């Protein structure tokens, strides 16, 4: 049965694995270039002038990355649509189930072999694409230092194996329930998106309790003031946590409360007096403020306030990858079980 499951699947398999070979060729041609740029970047940091190298890295990113990431992001859905949905539906639709299920092989074995062969191929395809992208993009991922972003997390490492298994099982289940390929494909796409997008937005960030860190504002870069219609307000931007998943950073006083305008009026009078009332558009907020006054105010804030960070630290990346992969594999197994039962008990 394994041979026949593969034989029926062969031409569909060739299309997808052919595409993956094409991707591999593109990656092999462009990959070493990125790697050497990255190497230059590491050595140039010692000398100082890295701007041109960084810009060629990021411009390369602009040319190739959207396609590579989009393909890796879409691949599981494509597998669900073109491998999963027709797997049983096409047999039911064309009537060939009457031929297939009356050979000397039980329906139990027929469906489990099909699920195993094409399911394994789906995971292989998803994993292969992810592995190639992970290798190819590693220089840029290192520069960007944003591994939790969905374009990296969802397209690289091991999670795509889980997505591929899930999408495939979803497609088969939809096909079995609809008994027709086309509506099954539409349903597969709709459900796949309906699971993945909310998962990424609402579930993944809370799979583990985020870390809450209180730290001195002295370590924070990018401190300053922002002009609002009601006057100046304090900002502390840079969290300086590479590769982490940041939820919020806020500035909280020792006894609670934020840096209010009232507080600024009470403590930074000398600085506020130097702010021009109507600087006009495009004029820097700090224009007209003497550095001493600025520093004095910042020091006062630093003494009375802290930065409170809520985030998933970078070292949890692999934990998140494993959890997410496992969740989608479990979903795939549940859907596969439903399909198995339905084909045995409910069809015809």
């Amino acid at each position, binding site marked *: 049965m394994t*041979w*026949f499951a593969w034989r029926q699947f062969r031409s569909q398999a060739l299309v997808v694995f052919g595409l993956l070979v094409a991707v591999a060729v593109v990656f092999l041609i462009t990959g070493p270039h990125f790697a050497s740029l990255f190497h230059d970047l590491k050595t140039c940091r010692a000398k100082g002038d890295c701007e041109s190298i960084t810009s060629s890295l990021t411009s390369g990113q602009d040319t190739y990355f959207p396609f590579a990431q989009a393909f890796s992001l879409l691949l599981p859905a494509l597998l669900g649509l073109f491998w999963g949905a027709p797997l049983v539906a096409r047999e039911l639709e064309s*009537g*060939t189930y009457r031929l297939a299920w*009356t*050979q*000397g092989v039980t329906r139990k074995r027929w469906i489990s072999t099909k699920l195993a062969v094409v399911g394994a191929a789906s995971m292989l395809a998803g994993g292969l694409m992810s592995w190639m992208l992970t290798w190819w993009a590693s220089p840029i991922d290192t520069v960007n230092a944003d591994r939790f972003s969905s374009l990296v997390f969802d397209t690289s490492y091991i999670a795509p194996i889980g997505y591929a298994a899930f999408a495939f099982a979803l497609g088969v289940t939809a096909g079995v329930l609809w008994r027709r390929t086309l509506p099954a494909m539409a349903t597969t796409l709709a459900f796949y998106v309906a699971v993945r997008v909310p998962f990424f937005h609402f579930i993944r960030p809370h799979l583990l309790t985020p870390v809450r860190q209180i730290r001195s504002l002295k370590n924070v870069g990018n401190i300053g003031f922002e002009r609002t219609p009601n006057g100046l307000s304090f900002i502390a931007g840079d969290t300086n946590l590479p590769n982490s998943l940041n939820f919020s950073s806020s500035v909280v006083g020792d006894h609670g409360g934020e840096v209010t305008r009232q507080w600024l009026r009470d403590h930074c009078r000398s600085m506020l007096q130097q702010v021009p009332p109507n600087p006009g558009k495009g004029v820097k907020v700090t224009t007209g403020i003497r550095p001493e006054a600025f520093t004095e105010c910042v020091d006062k804030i630093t003494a009375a306030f802290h930065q409170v960070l809520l985030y998933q630290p970078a070292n949890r990346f692999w934990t998140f990858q494993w959890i997410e992969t496992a969740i989608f594999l479990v979903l795939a197994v549940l859907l596969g079980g439903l399909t198995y039962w339905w084909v045995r008990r409910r069809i015809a």
Partner: protein
Amino acid sequence: MTSALLAVDLGKRYGRKWALSGCTLDIPTGHVVGLVGPNGAGKTTLLHLAVGLLSPSSGSLMVLDEAPASSAEQLGRIGFVAQDTPVFENLSIATHLQMGAALNPKWDEQLAQQRILELGLDPNQRAGRLSGGQRAQLALTLAIAKRPSLLLLDEPVASLDPLARREFLATLMEVVAEHEVSVILSSHLVADLERVCDYVVVLASARVQVNGEIENLLSTHHRLVGSRRDLDNLPESAHVIEVSHTDRQTTAIVSSADPILDPSWSVEEMTLEDLVLAYMGQAEEQRRVLLRSNGGAK
């Protein structure tokens, strides 16, 4: 004694509609059985139940003394040719044979190869490009090369032209003669069955109307023609299947184990077609009566 098919009060329901109900049959092995009835009578349902594509809603069914599709071994003993003879359109004839070899333990490769050769088919041709007759022959080849004990064929010749139809049935008869195989084949045309069958099951209105060896049935069914009258003075064992009156004459079709001795009847022999039509007519009449009484109850 093995039964090819043993059904007890077998029924299959789709939603509220019974496609087959109260079907009790015991067909011995060693026959070529014609399963005949109008379209929608439940023939396909019965065959799909027999091969395990469907499971019964009521009653029980044994095929060659085992529950249908209960094991790979059981499936291997049944050759099935489904209606419209489905094949895998994208796969070649050779691949179909490879499939048969891979999936059936008793596969007879030599028989399969030889049949394809005799049919003059190119093994590399895609099954989707075969004519209806060729496709039916391929489907039959796949079923036969399993070396089954029982062949089930669902309207195998319905979509074939007269020549292809004759060739198909001729092949079937060769197979029956060469290998000891029981056959159940369905058709809505009696003419197809008359040539090849020695046993008949008449299905109409989702029920078995009559079944038995054709020879026995024909010898126990009579057409009576006589002057117009009521039907009395018939033997105890006689059942009236159909009766019609004209102004002067009464014609009746009766089944009777005893001979009809009343000399006022002229007793005529019946053909299989007469018999089948009489039972179908009876089923139709019963259905109308049932509809009328249901309508009256409302």
